[in-house]
C-alpha cells in the first residue's frame, strides 16, 4: 500500500469525508467498470458506484490492511454489483444500453448496420455473462476489464491462483461459445 494511500485510509477510518472524496476520485472509474461489466446499464452502474462508496465509508473502520486496499474495494464492488444484478433480474426495470453508448469516431462504425451489430453484441454479451456462475463472471471482469493479475484476483476473490485460472478458463469458454458468431464477424 502506498504511504499516501495508508494515510488516506486512516483518515477515512476516522470519518474524514475529504479522505473518502480522494479515494472516490481515485477509484470511481474502476468501480464503475466493474459494476458496468456486471449490469451493462449506465444508470444502474452509477447507482452501484454510489452504494459501494457509502458502504466503504461505513465498513472501512474494519479494514485491517491484511489485503491490498484495492482488492478489498474491488471485492465490495463486485459483490454489490452482483446483488444489484440479482435484484434487477427479479424486477426488471431497465434494458441494457446500446453497446458502449459511445459514438465511434470511425465513420465505418457509425454505419447503422455496425451500430445494430454492436447493440446485439452487447445484448449477447450480457446474456452470456448473466448465465455464468458468479465466481466465473467475477474472474472474467477482474481480468478482462480491470486487468488484475492472477495474484491480485486471488486476493480479491479470496481463493487460490489455481482456482482463479480455472474460473477464468471456464468463463472464457462459455462466453466464447455464446459470442462465437459475433466475434468472428468483428474480424
Amino acid at each position: 500500500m502506498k504511504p499516501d494511500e495508508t494515510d488516506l485510509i486512516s483518515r477515512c477510518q476516522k470519518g474524514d469525508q475529504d479522505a473518502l472524496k480522494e479515494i472516490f476520485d481515485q477509484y470511481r472509474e474502476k468501480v464503475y467498470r466493474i459494476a458496468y461489466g456486471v449490469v451493462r446499464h449506465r444508470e444502474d452502474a452509477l447507482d452501484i458506484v454510489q452504494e459501494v462508496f457509502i458502504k466503504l465509508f461505513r465498513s472501512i473502520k474494519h479494514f485491517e490492511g491484511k489485503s491490498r486496499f484495492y482488492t478489498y474495494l474491488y471485492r465490495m464492488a463486485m459483490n454489490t454489483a452482483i446483488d444489484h444484478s440479482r435484484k434487477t433480474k427479479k424486477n426488471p426495470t431497465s434494458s441494457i444500453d446500446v453497446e458502449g453508448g459511445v459514438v465511434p469516431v470511425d465513420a465505418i462504425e457509425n454505419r447503422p448496420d455496425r451500430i445494430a451489430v454492436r447493440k446485439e453484441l452487447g445484448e449477447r454479451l450480457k446474456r452470456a455473462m448473466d448465465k455464468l456462475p458468479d465466481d466465473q463472471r467475477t474472474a472474467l471482469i477482474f481480468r478482462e476489464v480491470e486487468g488484475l493479475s492472477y495474484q491480485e484476483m486471488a486476493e480479491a476473490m479470496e481463493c487460490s491462483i489455481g482456482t482463479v485460472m480455472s474460473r477464468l478458463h471456464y468463463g472464457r469458454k462459455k462466453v466464447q461459445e455464446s459470442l462465437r458468431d459475433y466475434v468472428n464477424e468483428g474480424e
Partner: protein
Amino acid sequence: MKHPCSSVSELVEKYLDQEVTDQEKVLVETHLFDCSSCRDAMKSMEELSTVMKVPLYEIAREEDFDRVWLKVKREIRSEEKHSWWEVFRSWFGFATLHQKRVWIPTVAAALVLILVTVPLLLKKSPSLPVEFGVEYVESKTNNVMVYEVEESKVTVIWLFEGPEAEPTTS
C-alpha cells in the same frame, strides 16, 4: 521439438494474461508459430477481451461522477445526523409506534398484565384481627410466659432461663 496442443493450450491463456515464466513464454511462442488452431484460439480470446474492455473505458470517462459524489455525501451526512437520537428512536421503535402492528400487541400485552395484576394486588386475604395478639409461642429449651400490660398496651413475651431466671417484678 513440437509440443502437442493439449500440453500447450493451458499455457496459451496464461500467455495471453502475461502470467507465464520466461521458459513457458518461449514454449508457447514456438508452438503458436506452428499451430494455427492455437493461434485462432488465442485470437478469439483476445477479441473477447476487446469486446468486454474497450467500451467500458470510454463510457467510464464520460460519466458524471460529481453527481454521484453529491449523493454519497448527502447520504453520509444524513446518517451522521441520526446519531444518538435515531439510535434511541429506532431501538424503541418510536418511529413505527403509529403502526398498528406495533401498538396493538403492546396495548394488548399491557391490558393482560393489568387484568392479571390488579386483582392480585387488590385481593382480599382473610382479615386479621385488628388488635395486637400472640398467635402462638413455643420454646423447646425454655419456659415462656406472656404478659399483657393493659395501661401501656405492651405485650411481653418472657423466656425463663433456669429457676433463678424469673425477672424481678414489681
